[in-house]
């Protein structure tokens, strides 16, 4: 399912410019959307799901114009959406909550709905807790319910906003594998500020910075942006006041720093996607301190 945004802008009340002239094409497969907190990722996700409308520009998904009610409805029928701030009804069980969302997604056949809910509870590894009230679920378990509800209608377009936040490492890996598998035959948009999630699941990515699209290309190309800009330094003294420290590890009574900087303060190191992202952020004078590995 092809997704196009053409010069999309959105300003919220209080004149907060959340997105500015964002033009993005996703022909299919999985696309990682990176950006610091406040970069406009969630606003873009909400525009793509039809929850909000752009002030200007055009969004078409699978040939449907999101400016029209019919277009939004057609897209929402094939959409799976996991919002960043997912809430649940604490007085329902996991199974009941999924059943409710399934009904709203048009899964009218009772037997199919029950089977699908059961399959997804298994898939996200909470089948044992399916009949417990959501009030008693941990944050990670609720997140898994969120993932399950996004998949209920076997969506052609899957939009997931910070899907792995709150998941333990094992679940994160499991979910990333699942996302890659799902992307084999649908369009997946993975919005995150966790660079590692994109590095492990996507070959294509886009980066938003202060509401603008500042990068669109492959993971490899973004990583290459840090070529010659990544340095490794072991010291127990002061860190050189250049660039951005992306890692600091204890090392034989000192600390090993990994630094992304335009000038050379120490020995070379092999760049990663995170380094590429930081180098890009430096070029665009963005705050990348909130980005985590």
């Amino acid at each position: 399912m092809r997704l196009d945004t053409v010069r999309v802008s959105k300003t919220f009340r209080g004149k907060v410019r959340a997105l500015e002239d964002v033009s993005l094409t996703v022909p299919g497969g999985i696309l990682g959307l990176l950006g610091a907190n406040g970069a406009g990722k969630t606003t873009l996700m909400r525009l793509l799901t039809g929850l909000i409308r752009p002030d200007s520009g055009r969004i078409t998904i699978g040939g449907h114009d999101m400016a029209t009610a019919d277009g939004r409805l057609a897209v929402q029928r094939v959409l799976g959406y996991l919002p960043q701030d997912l809430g649940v009804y604490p007085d329902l069980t996991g199974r009941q909550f999924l059943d409710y969302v399934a009904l709203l997604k048009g899964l009218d056949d009772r037997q199919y709905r029950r089977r699908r809910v059961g399959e997804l509870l298994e898939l996200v590894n909470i089948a044992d807790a399916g009949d417990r009230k959501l009030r008693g679920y941990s944050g990670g378990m609720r997140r898994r319910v969120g993932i399950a509800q996004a998949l209920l209608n076997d969506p052609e377009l899957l939009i997931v906003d910070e899907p792995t936040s709150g998941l333990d490492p094992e679940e994160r890996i499991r979910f990333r594998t699942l996302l890659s598998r799902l992307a084999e035959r649908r369009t997946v948009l993975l919005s995150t500020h966790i660079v590692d999630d994109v590095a492990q699941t996507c070959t294509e990515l886009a980066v938003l910075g202060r509401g603008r699209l500042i990068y669109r290309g492959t993971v490899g190309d973004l990583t290459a942006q840090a070529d010659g800009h990544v340095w490794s330094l072991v010291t127990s003294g002061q860190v050189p006041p250049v660039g951005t420290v992306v890692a600091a590890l204890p090392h034989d009574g000192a600390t090993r720093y990994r630094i992304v900087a335009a000038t050379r303060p120490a020995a070379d190191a092999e760049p990663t996607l995170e380094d590429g992202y930081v180098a890009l952020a430096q070029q665009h004078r963005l705050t990348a301190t909130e980005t985590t590995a």
Partner: protein
Amino acid sequence: MTAFAATARYELRMQLRKPAIWIATGLPFGLYALFAVLGSDSTGLQRYRYETSPKVWMVDALGWFTPVLPMVFGIVLADRLVRDRKLGVAELLDATPANRSARLVGKYLGACAATAVPVALVYLIVAVAFMVWREQPAALWWGLATFTVVVVPLLLLAGSLSFLGPQLMPTPLFRVLVASLFFWAAVTEVESEFPSFAGTLLSLTMDYPLGVFFDSPNATTGPAGVALDFLRPQPTTGAAVLSLALILGLAAAILWAAGALNARTSE
């Protein structure tokens, strides 16, 4: 199953599990039952002690408990719509293809139906008690009729106010205001010094339906020679039906406004 039916079903289920709806109905009913059994002079319930008419019992004796209900409805329904946003569920549900208006009406009717269950049980208990006590099965019929004509419209009005009000102000403040509104409606009289809708077609104590359909002596109807008399026509069947239509129309208009405001807030 449509979005309306799904939402109504789950809203009914969630609201029924809320202890507040049982407590908020049970407490005033407990007091009422206590006074009814003791027959205390101060409550005026004593005069029903020797009453044998099921109509009088189900309409007038139980009518001492009924004015409390809209306050209860307003208080327990106040969080139903705004809680979707507070819990963070609204965004998820809004992204489904389910029609928003259908979901709103389903939520409204599901929540109202659940809130009506404890009250319906109270009416049933009183009707059965009277039926056994006086051997008058007609108490069940009069209970059903009063519940449908008096309690349901008040519930629907309080419900729609509860969907709108908390979007405009904090929920606790709305609860105070809605309780005050219905208290004001219950205590002010036609010739009160305070401005009042008492005895009008818009009376929040349902004077016209009570007076016309149930011959209740507690209902005030007809011109009184005071302000707003244009809303106090002669008590006829047409006037009682008009009164019901106005209350239900007002509830529908308020619900529509609540839906429009909710959709705007989502943007």
